[in-house]
């Protein structure tokens, strides 16, 4: 690379395309003629043809671009933070939540509450879990702090409802057991980073 490129400080000028613009008419007659010419040129139909072509494509060739919301929705980024979902373990179908209470602790609007108890299998059972969506600000801390990737943000962004309670119970947020095979792993806040394996030190095992 030669030095001349650096010496040319008139950067950018060489990329300009000069438009071939006609001169602005100065006389009254000139102006009149320009109006007449522009009005009766077929340029109008050039534009109408584009519309026509798209209409034909949409109606007859099945290339419709309009999303028929609310019947259709666009896919949403995994990082979008909408109404929470509670995931299940893929193998057993049991809910992932272990009742550690970290989401409850970290919640800055104090909208998560849970009750836990010692169950018959000597495990911690989440007996009650609610999120008050009237207060939730969808900051995503709960999903980020969750050590089990149990509470995540789902794509359900319509937060309008007739009753707040419609969203807030554990069972409503939990993946329906019959749709377990459709459960998506979460890629948003708190998800395992792609290079997680590199950062892990292995613990020796004596088995």
């Amino acid at each position, binding site marked *: 690379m030669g030095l001349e490129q650096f010496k040319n400080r008139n950067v950018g000028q060489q990329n300009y395309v000069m438009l071939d613009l006609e001169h602005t008419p100065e006389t009254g007659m000139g102006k009149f003629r320009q109006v007449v010419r522009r009005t009766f040129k077929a340029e109008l139909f050039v534009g109408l043809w584009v519309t026509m072509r798209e209409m034909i494509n949409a109606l007859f060739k099945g290339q419709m671009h309009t999303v028929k919301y609310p019947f259709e929705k666009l896919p949403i980024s995994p990082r979008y933070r909408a109404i929470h979902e509670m995931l299940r373990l893929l193998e057993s179908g049991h809910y992932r939540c272990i009742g550690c209470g970290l989401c409850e602790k970290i919640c800055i609007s104090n909208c998560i509450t849970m009750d836990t108890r*010692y169950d018959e299998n000597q495990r911690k059972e989440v007996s*009650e879990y609610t999120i008050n969506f009237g207060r939730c600000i969808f900051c995503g801390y709960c999903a980020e702090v969750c050590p089990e990737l149990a509470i995540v943000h789902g794509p359900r962004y319509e937060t309008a409802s007739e009753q707040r309670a419609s969203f807030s119970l554990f069972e409503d947020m939990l993946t329906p057991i019959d749709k377990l095979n459709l459960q998506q792993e979460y890629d948003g806040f708190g998800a395992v980073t792609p290079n997680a394996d590199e950062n892990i030190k292995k613990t020796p095992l*004596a088995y």
Partner: protein
Amino acid sequence: MSEVKTVENMVTITIDGKTYHAKEGEYILNAARANDVFIPAICYLTRCSPTLACRLCLVEADGKQVYACNAKVKEGMEITVDTPNILAERRAIMEVYDVNHPLQCGVCDKSGECELQNYTLELAVDSQTYAIPDTKREVKDWSSVLHYDAGLCIVCERCTTVCKDMIGDAAISTTKRGGEPLDKAYKETMPKDAYAMWNKLQKSIIAPSNGTDFTDCSDCGECTAVCPVGALTGRDFVYTSNAWELERVPATCAHCSSGCQIYYEKKHTSVSDRSEKIYRVTNEWNYVSLCGAGRYGYDFENRVEGKDEAAFNAAVEALKKAETIRFNSVITNEEALMLQTLKEKLGVKLVNLDARAFQKFLASYSKAAGQSLYSYDFKEVMATDFVISIGAALRNDNPNARYAFNNVQKMNKGAGLYFHPVGDNLVPTFGKNIEVFTHKVGLEEAALYLVLDLFADKEKLPEDVKSYLESFKTTTTKTAKEKVMKDVTETVIDEETGEEKEVTKKVPEMVEKEVTVEKNGLVELLGKESDAFDVAFEKMMKKKESFSMIVGEDLYFHERAENIAKLIALIEQTTPIRVAMIPPKTNSLGVALICDLDDEATGYTVGYNENGDFKLSALGDGDLDMPAMNQQEGTLTNMHKRVTPTNAALEYKGYELNDLMKALVGAPELTVDWTKSLPVEKGFESVAFDDLPNGYLNDGTENRGYALNSIACDADTVAVEPIDEQCVLEGEIVYRCNPQRQFNDFSDKAHEIFESFGLYASPAKAEHLGARVEIDFGNRSIVVDVIEDDRMEGDITALADFKSAEDVYGLFGNARYRKVTMRKV
């Protein structure tokens, strides 16, 4: 360090180049802690013996590696906390602790308050080098309150240490784990101490020491308090709440006169019920040990919907026409002062049976001793090396008195004398040098005379007492057999050489000898063999320097209480023994100091948590509701002669005593506004409630409230009377005594206290009595269940008095022992 401490017994030490002062003979670890220097340690408990289980407290003292928990400070000692070698040891130790430790921190009840977690982070353990196959360890419920998750246990032995050295039950101990032996290669590659610690850890686990799956103990739960990990928890608390969600309310336990510092830990009841609830009680376990009532008897609150105006007006009317207010000592100093004000303004009589007996006793004592309060508190008792207990059912009356008695045996190589008519098989297990006198009921005076005889400086004793004591001594000659070693010379033929040799051997021979034996009639009177006791006592007295005596409720309710109080004053004057008294109920000492009490209730009676024509009650069963102790602020006077503050843990929506005072005679706005009006002439201080601290300092100094001032008064010359053997009771005797963990209606209301009301008896006696008996006290009789208490011995049975509705005090009158007739029902 505070300036109060005397300079003579202080030494100067250097820790990491900085100079500190420490008490002579103190462990390095304690000295460092008192000076706010951090030395890592898991297994050490301040008031217990060093276990040397964790070995983390390794430090370098004068160039040598020592364990800080086990090495005492010396003048000029130079201590280095971290050397590269020690840091390597510590890191290896923490790695070992983390081997196979379940990664369930997310659900663990320790929820971040975990010492294993803290030290793992502190020593920056970010990778694991060691491995061993795990052993299956089962989760077990040891008792109605104890929950043990062996999987989480790191066998630091704090639980077993506290149970043995402080509580005295020794109900849990280490047992075989059955784990794999360590890989031999580790011995070379690992730091030395870490290997030794791991070797021990891999072999042991904690289990009830009686060999069964269940502990035989007083269910105090102190083991759960000291557990550094989540292995030991209260059964009711398991997996119900994270520690960080609970709000800690510093308070004073209101069940017995120990007045221990506790924290009520509370949060909302559930997702749907937002009213607050106490989840557990915790304590500063390095400085104070709780009993089962304190730890598990917390949910006795009186939930009231709102202010019941009609009931309030009725109460005002009732108090206006009342001739007597009957109450018990489960009230605060402020409330006692209010009642006293009512007495002064309205002329009502104040009747409180437990405090009245104690008040009289204390008055007789202070008249003879020249001071308004007894000499020692129970912390001072704990520091002595010879402790005597008279007239207290040590196991039942007051847990802290028992802990002190036990701790003296375990920590100070101490000795103890235990005088009590009711046989107890736990007290002798506290130490090797304990002599238990199970004497006849009513012979407490003889016990005190024996103490005088054993310890008094005979010069100081009044002549009549001296000759009275002499009158018990008899000398007899006895033929005793004695072993004497005799030299015997024998001629032996050597088998190899055939030479004859003379060999001198020592052969034992029994020789009969005439000995003069001095018999002490007092010892015999108290039911022990005089000779045997003399031998034992001589052994007990070896290397003893400080002496203390615990006296209990039996003496206050004794027919000869006045003479007994004088004898105690005499003991203090003529012996090195100092006395600590156990006030019978929670705030008996405070009530005794604040109120002018009357003996008999007459006319229209208003009962405060007691029976009466109109009943104010914090139990929810009265005519007007009152707040319970966990719902009100105020101060309590405990047996350590301290006025300690307690705070309201739970909301109370109803009326309190101060509201009645406002309507009757006028009162300040808040109950705690009375605190600064507590009578200064009785030893209280004029301090506002909000200025009272409630905590402990790092060196164990009790920074709670203030200590009562003992007021000196003119002492009468102590004229004691001889033993009155008329008081001796024989036959079927019932003792007024609560089971462990039960003190009053409030402990009974708590859902985790299961001991029921009834007649407690030794197994043999219980079998004899059957399931249910009618006890006839002469004036009245009561039908109760018989409950077996396998710690009791002998024929005397114990009737619980914690239910005020049963009016057990009324049955017993002014005595703690009563002769009765019993009939099977």
